[in-house]
């Protein structure tokens, strides 16, 4: 007979046991260790130009007589795939997530360093376990691919003619020219937009605003001569443009492009340099069409000509599509213009890589699954920044009655912020699904919080709004100047914590220290985290140190050490401690130290026999899809010898197979270090004695169920 009391005791014990069984200590992965990947790799495409504007969409091309690198995109890739070009063996390296757009998309990318080829057409082949799974032709040309690409980029940059100059400051002097002056064509370019309900985030089409199209490229075309280009200029900060020395009694067209660019005249090495273009990804052809607004052909008069244009909204007062949505690309461009103007206040010689924004009325929230080409039909999933593939760039939603983002400045600013982090700073954001009130990897929380913060700083609005739904009448709006509410995730792992801290600093101390901190993060081996930002911010703005520390403490950022190291006496954060996480005791330890020793002999040998064990954890809220807190673990080591080091990741009873772990390596100068294939482990890297390296390790979610303790990353000196 069991008494009521003893029954209660048994219940309690059972509940406690249940909790324990689901913890890191009691539940190892249910996958068999050391199980090689059973799924075969599938190749989706290849890419030979790794820059943000690509020109090889018609087919991959490499330069003859010199080694080349070819990126290979696919599913279930691993460094152990055999790649050949023209029959010569290539060396594979760097397994990375391609886009990680959705659960039903798992596209990855590896790079292949291939030997020099002779002019002609050669085949690239990929072989998996002895079976050829892919073959594609690659053109080998005699000229330099790099030079051709540079020439292509140059052709996309406007060649400004008088009176436009190459600095924004001088642009402003063009204001108030929109009046008829002999020998000129001048005017003002404007566009219509709905206003935003900052309570609901919805768009209000019965209360329009008219905005100036600023910093846009303007061309004067000769309509009497096949629309040949006569002159190129740009609108100023008031939307005005002007062309002088215009022929009289000539039919001309004024064409405004959704393009803002700063170029440096030949021989000039100062001044800003960038080129941003808004294109339609759903247009046909390899190069996607640039959005432009054109006037009718107009006869020029001796007394001067005023040719002003307005880009129409294309929606009626109820939010229903009523015509061409001309103003959308210029609304997107306006956010970017505001951004670069602000950036130039911090650095007047800023150089940013040329870049495409893709917007189309067809861009909708349908998943592109594993078909890269579906993105070019509008299935972009969501507004996002992508640095990979034949069409890297910013993809912005435009599908009416589903989700339009062209007037959501916070969304555009957020995604442009990701581009800035990629182009001017450093990002090891693992990507993937995210939301506020989740416990995310420190670099994801930083990246997304940073995106919100810089979006607000660049657009000058404290509201992050996102409209959607039927007639764009729904959505949401958040005031990013407010601290995280009680009971919500709040700490280095929460994107809303990061956005509040960064936005507050950016508004309190101005944009320049913010920008200088951001660009300083391009150097060093440290991950892009809130610790890294705050630490560098205080160095660049010492007078802010006490405020920064107080702000951080109030938001549960418990240290401003650049590595996030806590004092030994610190009590664990109750939100992520062992109890909260189901048994992971080390989630506040951002970096684990490896101490490689000098090995004798020349055999392949483990040089980190004392490597610590650690836990992978996906039990906390938001850790479900591989980017949660505890799913990426970071390591630091200083190389004891120069040469090749192998990386192995083991777990109780076995190890992680090639292709199941994504690795990010950085050296003390901030350079990304490649990981090449190695048949004995995850890969091998080349190191220099005395240099410190950070290694980020993220296992594929498929290999982790629940929490898993007893993992160990070891370094192996590879037989010379």
């Amino acid at each position: 007979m069991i008494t009521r009391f003893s029954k209660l005791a048994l219940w309690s014990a059972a509940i406690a046991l249940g909790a324990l069984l689901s913890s890191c200590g009691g539940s190892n992965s249910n996958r068999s260790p050391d199980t090689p990947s059973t799924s075969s790799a599938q190749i989706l495409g290849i890419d030979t130009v790794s820059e943000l504007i690509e020109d090889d969409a018609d087919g991959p091309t490499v330069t003859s007589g010199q080694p080349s690198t070819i990126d290979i995109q696919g599913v279930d890739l691993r460094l152990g795939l055999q790649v050949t070009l023209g029959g010569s063996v290539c060396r594979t390296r760097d397994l990375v997530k391609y886009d990680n757009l959705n659960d039903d998309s798992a596209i990855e990318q590896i790079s292949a360093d291939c030997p020099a080829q002779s002019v002609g057409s050669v085949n690239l082949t990929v072989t998996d376990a002895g079976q050829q799974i892919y073959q594609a032709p690659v053109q080998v040309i005699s000229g330099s691919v790099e030079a051709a690409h540079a020439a292509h980029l140059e052709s996309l940059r406007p060649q400004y003619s008088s009176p436009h100059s190459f600095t924004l400051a001088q642009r402003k002097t063009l204001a108030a020219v929109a009046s008829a002056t002999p020998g000129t064509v001048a005017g003002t370019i404007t566009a219509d937009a709905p206003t935003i309900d900052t309570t609901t985030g919805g768009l209000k089409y019965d209360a329009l605003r008219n905005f100036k199209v600023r910093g846009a490229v303007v061309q004067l075309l000769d309509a009497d001569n096949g629309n040949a280009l006569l002159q190129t200029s740009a609108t100023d900060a008031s939307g005005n443009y002007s062309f002088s020395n215009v022929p009289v009694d000539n039919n001309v067209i004024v064409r405004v492009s959704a393009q803002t660019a700063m170029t440096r005249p030949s021989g000039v090495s100062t001044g800003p340099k960038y080129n941003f273009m808004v294109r339609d990804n759903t247009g046909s052809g390899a190069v996607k069409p640039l959005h432009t607004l054109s006037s009718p052909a107009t006869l020029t008069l001796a007394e001067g000509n005023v040719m002003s244009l307005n880009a129409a909204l294309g929606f009626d007062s109820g939010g229903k599509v009523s015509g061409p949505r001309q103003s959308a690309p210029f609304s997107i461009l306006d956010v970017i213009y505001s951004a670069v103007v602000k950036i130039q206040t911090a650095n007047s010689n800023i150089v940013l890589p040329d870049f495409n924004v893709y917007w189309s009325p067809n861009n909708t929230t349908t998943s592109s699954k594993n078909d890269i080409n579906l993105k070019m039909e509008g299935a972009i999933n969501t507004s996002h920044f992508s640095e990979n593939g034949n069409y890297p760039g910013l993809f912005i939603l435009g599908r009416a009655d589903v989700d339009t983002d062209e007037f959501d400045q916070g969304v555009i600013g957020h995604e442009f912020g990701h581009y800035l982090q990629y182009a001017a700073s450093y990002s090891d954001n693992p990507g993937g699904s995210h939301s506020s009130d989740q416990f995310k990897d420190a670099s994801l929380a930083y990246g997304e919080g940073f995106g919100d913060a810089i979006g607000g700083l660049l657009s000058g609005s404290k509201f992050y709004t996102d409209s959607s739904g039927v007639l764009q009448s729904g959505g949401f709006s958040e005031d990013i100047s407010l601290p995280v509410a009680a009971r919500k995730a709040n700490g280095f792992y929460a994107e809303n914590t990061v956005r509040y801290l960064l936005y507050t600093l950016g508004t309190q101390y101005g944009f320049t220290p913010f920008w200088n901190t951001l660009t300083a993060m391009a150097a060093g081996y440290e991950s892009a985290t809130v610790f890294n930002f705050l630490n560098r911010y205080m160095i660049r703005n010492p007078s802010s140190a006490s405020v920064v520390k107080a702000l951080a403490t109030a938001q549960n950022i418990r240290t401003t050490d650049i590595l996030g190291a806590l004092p030994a006496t610190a009590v664990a954060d109750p939100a992520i401690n062992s109890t909260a996480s189901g048994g992971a005791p080390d989630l506040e330890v951002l970096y684990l130290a490896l101490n490689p020793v000098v090995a004798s002999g020349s055999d392949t040998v483990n040089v980190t026999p004392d490597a610590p064990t650690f836990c992978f954890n996906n039990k906390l809220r938001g850790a479900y899809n591989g980017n949660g807190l505890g799913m990426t673990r970071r390591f630091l080591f200083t190389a004891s010898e120069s040469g090749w080091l192998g990386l192995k990741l083991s777990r109780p009873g076995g190890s992680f197979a090639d292709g199941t772990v994504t690795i990010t390596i950085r050296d003390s100068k901030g350079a990304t270090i490649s990981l090449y294939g190695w048949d004995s482990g995850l890969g091998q890297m080349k190191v220099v004695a005395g240099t410190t390296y950070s290694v980020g390790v993220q296992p594929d979610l498929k290999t982790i169920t629940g929490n898993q303790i007893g993992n160990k990353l070891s370094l192996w000196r590879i037989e010379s």
Partner: protein
Amino acid sequence: MNSLYGTYAVALALGALLVAGCDHPRNSADPPHSAAEDCPGLKGLLKASTERPVRRQVTQESFQRAGWQGGHHPKGKPGSGLALYYRFDNDTGRANRRVIPISIALGDVRRAPALVAVYGIDGARLQAGDDQSVWRLQPGMISEIGLTAIVPASSGGLVAATCQDGKISMRHIPLPGRQLHRQRASGDYRLDADGNPIVDMQAPLVSGPSKPPAEGHKGNNP
């Protein structure tokens, strides 16, 4: 004895659930909120909303993905954070079928209130009762709802709006056999004089000119 073991098994499961990291619904003592109050951004969709119970609930762990499409909301802008899976039921592959049953499963609900509403676009609509409905989702569970779409032959899709923590995400679900409805481009696709592709959007002058184009001018819009 067996029932005692059963009781312990339930307790074990409860213990595991308690540490699984989800928060709990709003205190039952709180006054009930309408869907529009819980998620103001859905107001535009829910002119006359009816709250309906979900068809079934399973734990995250017991949810079988086979046969379902979709998943977590993708990388990119912030949103509801909910995972959305969908499956076309009784799919016989007939391209012209006008009535399509669909199941939608939603997961990764962290805290109440979390809601979903669905509507048709491009000519598709939901059968009476499914439209203007909203479903409330429970934390820690996968909730499944069933809908019937009535669609024209050539195009049509559904849009699911999910809401959590006040944030909304939209998922456009194309229906089987239906292409994504092509929207009107913002201009004409052309090549400029240098052969570069452009979307040529034509706009009238909003100032001047004092003279119309010369008659018989040689210009051709590219």
